[in-house]
């Protein structure tokens, strides 16, 4: 894939077009793991948001290929620990903030339907790497020191270098529509699935149960075409 991309980027005969813009959205993150050995306990999904700068490199000759896109993004991937049954008053809402770099190839279907206007269906496929920046935990717990009351906590999460993995990576696949009212602007609406392939935790223990983020996002992007870059022969 890298070789093909490089070949595309190096094509002298191609008038490559740069698009830059912003991409923002909301997501729902699921922590996928196995907690069958812990009764009255479950991980629940939570909402988060994301915002980034979209940079796309398009090849006009390849109308079916939307180009290569990278979107340096700030993204939240949140989850909730919920005790159930008798202990349902106890929970922990965890907010995790990442700086993420998704890189994807964009495939397009459809095309121009009016002069200068186009409507495509898009399929984005690629992967991402991300860096855990910060976290926050808020919730209620119980202490034998205070059996009458649930004790609230609301504090920044302290990164545990033994247990927590700061760099994570995964894949992405998204489908959506892309609309261009003219040659300059491109709007797109996309549903994207980003599964992580790296355990959220370092491999710090034998028999460790892995934990993965599965994030479903709804993303809106506005991109602007930069002036066409003409290569000299």
């Amino acid at each position, binding site marked *: *894939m890298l070789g*093909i991309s490089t*070949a*595309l980027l*190096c*094509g*002298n*005969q*191609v008038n490559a077009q740069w698009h830059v813009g912003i991409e923002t959205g909301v997501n729902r993150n699921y922590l996928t793991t*196995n*907690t*069958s*050995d*812990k*009764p*009255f*306990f479950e991980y629940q999904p939570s909402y988060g948001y994301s915002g980034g700068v979209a940079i796309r490199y398009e*090849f006009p*000759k*390849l109308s079916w*290929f939307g180009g290569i896109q990278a979107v340096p993004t700030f993204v939240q991937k949140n989850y909730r*620990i919920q005790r159930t049954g008798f*202990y349902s008053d106890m929970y*922990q809402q965890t907010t995790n903030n990442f700086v993420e770099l998704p890189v994807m*190839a964009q*495939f397009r279907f459809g095309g121009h339907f009016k002069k200068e206007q186009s409507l495509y269906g898009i*399929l984005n*496929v*690629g*992967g991402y790497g991300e860096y855990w920046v910060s976290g926050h*935990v808020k*919730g209620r*717990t*119980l*202490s*034998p*020191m*205070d*059996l009458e009351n649930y*004790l609230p*906590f609301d*504090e920044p999460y302290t990164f*545990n270098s*033994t*247990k927590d993995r700061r760099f994570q990576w*995964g*894949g*992405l*696949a998204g489908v959506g529509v892309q609309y261009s009212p003219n040659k300059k602007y491109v709007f797109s609406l996309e549903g994207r699935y980003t599964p992580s*392939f790296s*355990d959220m*935790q370092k491999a*710090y*223990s*034998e*028999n*460790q*149960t*892995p934990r*993965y983020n599965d994030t479903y996002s709804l993303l809106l992007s506005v991109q602007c075409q930069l002036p066409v870059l003409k290569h000299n022969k």
Partner: protein
Amino acid sequence: MVTRINNLINKINSRWGRSALLLLVLSSTLGACRKEVKPERLTSYYGRSYTEIFEAFWNGMNTNYMFWDVETVNWDNMYKTYKPRFEYLDQTKNDPQNPQRAVQFLVDMTKDLADSHLSLSFNGLTDYMISGYPVTGTNVFNPSAIRHQLRGDELYVPRSTFDVIIPKYYLTKAEMGTGTANDGTVWRINMGIIPRNNKNILYLEYKDFELQSQYYAVNTTANPVKPVLDNFFRYTKDPSIDGLILDLRGNPGGSVPDLDFLLGRLVTSPVHVTNTRTRNGNGRLDYTPWVKGYVHPQQGSTDFKKPIVVLVDKNSVSMSEMTSMSIKAIWPNAKLVGEHTWGGTGQIPSSDVKYMGGQFVAANFVQVYCAGVELRDVNMVCYENKGLTPDIQIAYDTTAIKRNIDVQLEKGLEVVTK
């Protein structure tokens, strides 16, 4: 070169090229696989083999034990070392010595763990070796108790010191209450006034922390507990009282709510005295955030401002240590007098369900009793397997006590009347 690249692009721009590229990208991103591990509930292990016993025990300790963040024992090394040994027992399963060998392995795996409450109860009597010494005909292994025994720390202040010598030779207005303790033995409390240097020092001592339950229990003995405690609380408000000695020597701990029951009578607003946390996942290092533990004022409490001394020794453990550190947090000028304490400050929930840690049964072969709540003092100092160092260290004198002189109490009186 340019021509070759253009040719490549033209090839890609064919129908087959597009399909191949799409397939290549899809397979390279979505084809990655995740590792899958399926833990089972501890009690789902039936112990049909020594390997199952080992897995249940190792996993149970891995997910329920509280002190992995401060532990010096490498639990992963235990897995690598002992899993093959248990597997070998399965290969020779008809050997009648195998149950005892399995016990010995579990003893060896846990003998250096820090949790001072940790004990293993085996399903039947057995023998094992610990530090070269044979232990025979028992079904319990308590690593911390063995360590103290090997260090020679097991000398207890005899009950006669509290029940006979101190009431007879130190206390005026001595009051003693008795009841039936949780373990079926006689529960005792001693209270009175010690006049010293023209001051009246209030003295309180009790077998263990069952204060609240003994206070409210139906008591048909000649010396019920409730009047003794009522008088103690009355004395704490008496202007003629100049100080307090709380004697926690040999006190093995007990009920955590006694902290509010006793110290809550001596404060008029909540005071932050400890920090606690529990587990919140099935990973070895999954913990809740630390939350503050308070002593809460009780109905009719007083703001006690007089000097306090707490007598402690090597056998003051658990709630005795929690009470000692709480007193130091509430009254920074209070002094601990005596010997270095045991070092067992974790708390023991009745099961591992509520707090997701603590005691569990592994494959019906061994019952593990261990802390399910980690506790530290207000400054986040951990005393587990370390103990509290008294402000004034003085050893129990077995010779002096024969002359009815309790040198630790004498030192306490000296400090509290200064």
